[in-house]
């Protein structure tokens, strides 16, 4: 494994310091925590939005902290949900009196840790609500399963909820629009190569030179099937069909995100987006906005995910509302 690090145990700590020293006017790290907050938080009377999760998904989640999006991002160890005490610090730091919404990705660990933090915060008299994002259609959603995973679609939830909160909505309203977004967003990814955790030192899994894993999770969790690598257009069609099948296609207006998982060059993401745009056009859908780039990565994994958000008037407005973050721009 070759990584530009000093010590596997300090990657998260040093990354957070590096991030803040690049944006000293916008971001602040809560002392002795792994919490990054808006420098102007808490904002009186505004609902605070807190998200986070394991590290290794950069720019998620700290890259989305800023006006119109997140008030705080809590970073866990690599691929490990942050702990309740850290999440609690974030909640306390951004509560402006209007309550705090937790945006949680649907993983056992994340849900348990965020819920514990929520209980603690409520014990301290802070009004807290939470939503769980589950956009990954690679996993079936049934009462017999733990449900779909939360992947790149989470970024759209951050954006929509953040815009709503910035507009002065109540905690209930912000939670409602976040849940509406969660109900309308679906994603699926593909991996061409594994990622390597700094502390593990070797790849989490291996794919043969001609293999790809369809439906990969952002922590390298297995997907639906391991098949022969095919063309960009074919892969894109496979992912899109699965995604569109699970989405409420009532609305023909959609937002698109083509998200790189780490090592896949932007050139290839654009080639994918060309096909995405064509397929959606052929289906008579209207692409309202498109984001192509790295938003929810998986360390150095090669591959990408496609996210489709089905839009209504309200979501459209919130999606393009002014935002000031390091990694998400409209």
């Amino acid at each position: 494994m070759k990584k530009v690090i000093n010590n596997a145990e300090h990657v998260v700590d040093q990354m957070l310091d590096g991030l803040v020293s690049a944006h000293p006017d916008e971001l602040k790290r809560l002392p002795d925590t792994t919490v990054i907050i808006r420098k102007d938080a808490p904002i009186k009377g505004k609902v605070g939005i807190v998200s986070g999760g394991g590290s290794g998904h950069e720019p998620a989640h700290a890259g989305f902290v800023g006006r119109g999006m997140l008030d705080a991002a809590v970073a866990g160890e690599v691929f490990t949900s942050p702990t309740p005490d850290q999440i609690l610090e974030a909640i306390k730091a951004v509560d402006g009196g209007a309550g705090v919404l937790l945006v949680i990705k649907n993983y056992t660990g994340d849900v348990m840790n965020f819920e514990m933090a929520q209980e603690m915060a409520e014990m301290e008299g802070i009004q807290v609500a939470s939503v769980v994002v589950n956009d990954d259609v690679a996993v079936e959603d049934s009462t017999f399963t733990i449900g779909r995973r939360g992947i790149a679609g989470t970024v759209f939830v951050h954006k929509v909820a953040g815009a709503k909160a910035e507009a002065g909505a109540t905690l209930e309203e912000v939670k409602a629009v976040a849940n509406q977004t969660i109900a309308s967003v679906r994603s699926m990814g593909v991996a061409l190569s594994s990622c390597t955790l700094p502390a593990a030192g070797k790849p989490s899994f291996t794919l043969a030179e001609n293999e790809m894993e369809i439906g990969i999770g952002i922590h390298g969790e297995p997907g639906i099937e391991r098949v022969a690598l095919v063309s960009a257009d074919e892969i894109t069609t496979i992912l899109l069909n699965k995604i569109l099948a699970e989405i409420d296609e009532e609305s023909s207006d959609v937002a698109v995100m083509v998200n790189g998982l780490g090592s896949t060059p932007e050139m290839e993401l654009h080639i994918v987006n060309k096909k995405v745009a064509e397929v959606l056009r052929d289906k008579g859908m209207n692409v309202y906005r498109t984001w192509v780039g790295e938003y929810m990565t998986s360390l150095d994994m090669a591959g990408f995910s496609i996210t489709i958000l089905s839009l209504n008037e309200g979501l459209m407005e919130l999606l393009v509302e002014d935002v000031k973050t390091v990694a998400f721009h409209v």
Partner: protein
Amino acid sequence: MIVLTIEHTKRWMEEIEKRMLEHKDQLTEFDQAIGDGDHGINMARGFHEVVAKINHVTYDSVSDVLKSAAMTLMAKVGGASGPLYGTAFLKMSMAMQGKEVNEEVFCQAMKDAVDGIHTRGKAEFGEKTLYDVWKQVADFLELEEVAEWQGLLEVCQATIEDTRELVATKGRASYLKERSKGHVDPGSMSSFYIFEALVEVIDWEE
């Protein structure tokens, strides 16, 4: 008869740390196979912090030692195993509050720990999680004399072997469905080390 003194308990944590460091790569490999490859890293970090913490504090009760351990695990591990082990030790601590830890108290504490894991993780028996191991151990302790407690190692091993062939339906491994068969659940393995350490310290006096 006293099963755990303050000293026993501190030693228990040290023995756990020793094993988690020793088997860090094994646990990580198990988690790479059916999870996300961080379990060994999480356990090594967590119990290292626990020992670092309890060595700098003087305690007046076993309950307090376990409470420190529980809080440290919750604050330093994260993931799925952090809250679960944290909850387990916290429930034990609560069950032992103001009591000397004899056989009966310990069994009750184990029972409460198992219930805690159950409520927090919502896993049922046989979903191929660490809950399986804790449940089996608790049931076994209730039936056996302390003298026979070393036997719980076989119980753990047996459980791990039985669950190896199961399909995981909770935790990350559940995403693998059928493909999770034939792999040992990493959390069950780390639980084995926790109980192996326990046996080690209980014998320790004799």
